[in-house]
């Protein structure tokens, strides 16, 4: 146990000093290109969350093995596991954001790795004892905290290493979150097939294996990550002497940032973009089959979902990279404007039976959904500076949690209402598409209202330490 000075300027005792920010400062000669793979190691693992549904059906047969028995869990009960995890993702990112920022990326990645592995091991115990509450606690609560801490852990570090291309840098990491499901889904199915027997569906052993594999991956990420030395700049990079209209060279304290209208305007922008995207992402399979009966089969719909996953992942990198050139505000204008046109086009594509147009619309929509996530850290950095951007980003992710509830509810309930009121299934989604387009108009207006943060919110060196000490770290 050693005593160090933490980010708030107060002495703190740490059990594992090698995790401290001071021990992760890069020596001269360290390549900044080592940081994106470190971030990917974490994001690829926690991205598994998007593939958790592959366990739902096998977990309804843990007792019956070949078919569900009355003692087996129901799909509706299992659905709560993912929902709890998403809620705790948002909560933990908001609550632990400042701790992540001040403790440094290695401590955060290490903690996320321990929590993520524990989530699988606790869930394995839940499967073994056939107690769903243990899985709610394991994957839902502990896993959700791993998701929140892991998601924001490399964000500000990447932007400090890549001040010349912050969008591209965070795009690489957040692309990993989208890509995690592409790995986890086939891997989980393959493992369950290997471990399954006449008396076991293989979920227990798969959870244990995944917990161990993810732990190793995330530990490697936490070991190779480094923070740049104070004052470090990439070779040849000259920071702009005067900040542009929407880019500040000053920092805003995390709890001061949430008092600014800019924070809440960006919250609305992210909420609208995510709600619209989540709505179609979760329902793409059913929607495509119902809008094009006989043209898009269940197998083809599964192919569309796969293709959408790729565009979701690719959009995270490409849109965020583009934002380095055209600016963050303009990138969100593209999301909102192009998104509006595409959502309005979907009903037309359905009515005219134009499958190609429908598929193109969905692929671009989902790429902008992913792009919305990866562009927002750099947007926050432009507005509030680099120092507390991870913590501010953590609080902003509550927009994701809110959208996770609003998106599916909007699309499901409106479809249900339409169907029960005699609207043909092929047209049941039209109203929803227009509502999503309307949401993007709201997002457009919110984005339009984003102006530079008032100077009175900027941190000043003399009050910097006082502020940090006055607001107790929450972890």
């Amino acid at each position, binding site marked *: 146990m050693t005593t160090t000075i933490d980010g708030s300027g107060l002495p703190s005792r740490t059990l594992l000093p090698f995790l401290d920010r001071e021990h992760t400062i890069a020596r001269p000669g360290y390549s900044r290109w080592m940081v994106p793979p470190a971030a990917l190691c974490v994001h690829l693992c926690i991205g598994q969350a998007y593939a958790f549904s592959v366990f739902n059906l096998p977990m309804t047969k843990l007792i019956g093995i070949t078919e569900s028995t009355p003692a087996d869990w129901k799909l509706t009960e299992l659905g709560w596991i993912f929902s709890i995890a998403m809620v705790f993702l948002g909560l933990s990112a908001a609550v632990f954001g400042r701790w992540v920022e001040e403790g440094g990326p290695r401590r955060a990645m290490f903690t996320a790795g321990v929590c993520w592995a524990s989530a699988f091991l606790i869930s394995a115990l839940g499967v073994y004892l056939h107690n769903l509450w243990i899985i709610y606690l394991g994957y839902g609560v502990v896993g959700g905290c791993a998701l929140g801490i892991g998601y924001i852990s490399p964000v500000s570090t990447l932007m400090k290493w890549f001040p010349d291309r912050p969008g591209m840098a965070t795009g690489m990491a957040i692309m990993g979150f989208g890509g995690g499901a592409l790995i986890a889904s086939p891997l989980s199915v393959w493992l369950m097939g290997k471990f399954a027997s006449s008396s076991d569906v293989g979920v227990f052993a798969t959870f244990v294996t995944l917990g161990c594999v993810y732990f190793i*991956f995330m530990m490697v990420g936490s070991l190779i990550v480094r923070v740049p030395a104070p004052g470090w700049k990439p070779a040849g990079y000259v920071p702009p002497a005067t900040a542009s209209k929407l880019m500040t060279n000053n920092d805003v304290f995390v709890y001061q940032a949430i008092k600014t209208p800019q924070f809440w305007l960006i919250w609305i922008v992210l909420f609208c973009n995510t709600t619209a995207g989540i709505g179609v992402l979760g329902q793409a399979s059913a929607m495509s089959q119902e809008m094009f009966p006989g043209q898009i089969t269940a197998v083809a719909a*599964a192919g569309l979902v796969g293709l959408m996953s790729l565009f979701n992942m690719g959009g995270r990198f490409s849109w965020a990279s583009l934002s380095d050139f055209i600016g963050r505000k303009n990138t969100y204008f593209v999301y909102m404007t192009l998104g509006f046109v595409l959502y309005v086009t979907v009903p037309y594509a359905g009515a005219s039976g134009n499958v190609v147009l429908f598929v193109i619309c969905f692929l671009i929509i989902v790429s902008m959904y992913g792009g919305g996530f990866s562009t927002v850290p750099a947007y926050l950095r432009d507005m509030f500076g680099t120092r507390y951007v991870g913590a501010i980003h953590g609080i902003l992710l509550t927009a994701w949690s809110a959208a996770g509830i609003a998106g599916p509810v909007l699309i499901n309930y409106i479809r249900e209402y339409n169907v029960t009121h005699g609207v043909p299934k092929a047209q049941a989604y039209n109203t929803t598409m227009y509502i999503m387009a309307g949401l993007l108009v709201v997002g457009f207006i919110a984005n339009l209202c984003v102006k530079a943060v008032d100077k009175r919110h900027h941190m000043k060196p003399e009050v910097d330490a006082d502020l940090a000490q006055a607001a107790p770290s929450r972890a």
Partner: protein
Amino acid sequence: MQNTSTSQTTTLQLVLAWSFAGIPLLAGVAQTLVNAMKLFQ
């Protein structure tokens, strides 16, 4: 405490780090692409 000694990152370290993260990702992308092709069948 800032360490002033140098530690040059080698090309091998970079290749290993990117491979460690990139190979599983590429495998996942390839598998998804194969499944996605069903849309065009």
